[in-house]
């Protein structure tokens, strides 16, 4: 999934990014509240990891403004502040979960997954479109019961689309969300990967789930065109 990490301590931020990328998530970093708000409002994230002690606008204020502006991205607060008033304030301002440092990385991953489920109306632990099932925890993808093997990037791309199943996502958004800013992404990289995905996911099936919306972007949804 696409995660925004808001943490002013560079070492910790880099560590979290590295750890999440090893789990095949794509990560953006923000070192202060202002950057966090800009990024969260510009791009689509599946979850936001939010530190509370930030320079300038603090974590509480970031959460408050996001929620006030209608942003429903799930927020996991990760902070050294552990008193009951801190926790209550964080949760009441819009955070979905709260973890204190030092923390167990495994637990962090699990809570991140849990929190990202809260974005959708019904909350299964797996993503499903038609008979295509993606399990974010195990990274196993199956269609009609048969397992599909995907590369890391293909997996990320598919997960991103499936989390927004039914919605049309603009090309730019997809590119910025799935790929790291450091990666070399050319004009047709996205198209190439969509092609790859289609060959693995849709080719052997009647119902084509992945769809191109000309001029805008891509989407994945049930009731796709039968070919």
């Amino acid at each position: 999934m696409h995660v925004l990490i808001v943490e002013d301590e560079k070492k910790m931020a880099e560590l979290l990014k590295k750890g999440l990328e090893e789990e095949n998530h794509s990560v953006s970093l923000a070192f202060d509240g202002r950057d966090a708000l800009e990024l969260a409002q510009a791009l689509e994230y599946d979850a936001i990891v939010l530190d509370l002690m930030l320079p300038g606008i603090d974590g509480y204020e970031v959460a408050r403004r996001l929620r006030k502006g209608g942003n429903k991205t799930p927020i996991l607060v990760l902070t050294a502040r552990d008193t009951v008033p801190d926790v209550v304030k964080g949760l009441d301002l819009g955070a979905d979960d709260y973890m204190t440092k030092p923390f167990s990385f495994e637990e962090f991953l699990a809570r991140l997954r849990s929190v990202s489920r809260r974005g959708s109306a019904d909350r299964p632990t797996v993503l499903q479109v038609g008979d295509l099932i993606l399990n974010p925890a195990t990274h196993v993808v199956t269609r009609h019961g048969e397992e599909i093997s995907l590369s890391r990037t293909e997996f990320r791309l598919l997960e991103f689309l499936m989390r927004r199943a039914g919605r049309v996502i603009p090309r730019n958004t997809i590119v910025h969300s799935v790929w790291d800013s450091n990666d070399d992404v050319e004009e047709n990289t996205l198209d190439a990967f969509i092609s790859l995905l289609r060959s693995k996911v849709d080719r052997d099936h009647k119902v084509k789930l992945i769809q191109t919306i000309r001029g805008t972007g891509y989407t994945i949804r049930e009731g796709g065109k039968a070919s």
Partner: protein
Amino acid sequence: MTLPIRLRLTAWYFAILAVVLCAFGVSAYIEMRHSIRKTVDEELQIRAEGVHQLIVRVIQRGQKEDLPDGLREHTELRQGGALLQVSDEQGNWLYRSTVMSDYGVPRPSSNTRRITEYLGKEVPLRIWNEKVSVGGESYFIQSAFEMDDFYEALDHFELMLYISIPTLLLCAAGGGYWISTRALSPVDQITQTARTISAQNLSSRLLVPDTGDELQRLSETLNGMLERLEAAFKKITQFTADASHELRTPVAVMRTRAELSLRKARSPEEYREVIAEVLAELEKTSALIEQLMFLARADSGAETLHFTPTNVAEVLHEACHQGSALAEAKQIGFKEQIPSDSLWILGDASSLRRLFLILIDNAVKYTPANGRVEVSLQRNDGFAVAEVRDTGIGIAEADLPNVFERFYRADKARTRELGGVGLGLSIGRWITEVHAGTIEVHSAPGSGSIFQIRLPISSSANINT
């Protein structure tokens, strides 16, 4: 044994009132008696004068032998005449009323006073004795007044005083006790309220009555004290919160780094790197813990320094030795201007060295490459003055008053990068103050900083070796 305040107040009140009432009673009684006697005396004098005039008239008419009759007539006609006796030089009674002879009032002698008191048959008599000279002869006029009624009334008055004064005193004492209870009850209220104030609700305050008196001042003073306590408490709580945050942060980094490293197989170089980074983080955390322990001991008074005659020049020189190495590593010019002769003060050498190192370390930390750090020492007016100057990034005016506060960092991000937490200067200040010295900073952004420490040279430590 000290009595409770209400009893003391009542006792004082009782004593004063007792003195006052007794004085009143005594003087009222005396005044009463004096007044009665004066009135009686005046009356007696008038009567005596009347008799005198009679004698003069009779003698002038040449009817001396008629004097007794004349006197008898006079007395029987006049009121109060029944108490009169007149005698001549030879001791003969010219007139003596029956009542007077009943009483047996004696003739006056040569040295009888004008007014005498005589107890005749248990009746107190007040007697006016007057010697008059008429026609060459002397006559003694004695006019008396029965004082029994008056004296009875006076006794009655005395008794009344004996009864009423103690009664009044007791009532007043009771009233006084009640008044002092009422006066002190606001104090009791303050006590009750103050009792409920504890660490949990230090922000509560006493009600201040608008009376302009001692109670208002007491309430205001206590509230002021609570204000200071709350502020100090907040400072401590803040320090604890900051300390725990500063410790948690590196520990979290170390934990996450180690956990991540173990999640997959890594290359030996990667493992080495991780271990090296964890070690570096541990060293910083250890230094931080040491700083926190120092401050905790300093706060609780457990940090005992050993004050002995110390050569500041030497200690500063040692600190510079370490400092110059730091500066060189960062390519900063380091200059030492310490006089070769000793400068003795009463101090703790190791903490002084630490103090100087803190300043030199800061100077090096916040000065970019190709900058300069200068350390100097001089004797000035009974003080050892040490200065650490740098050409570093400087401190903004808004931050200047706060730099010595615990955990204060003017530029959070940069300080953290440089491995600082904001405790160095607060430790430095504590050390300076414990040596009865002062520490000052002059700085401006972009033009570097000057830290100046003044330590008093105690005369007893002026040992020339």
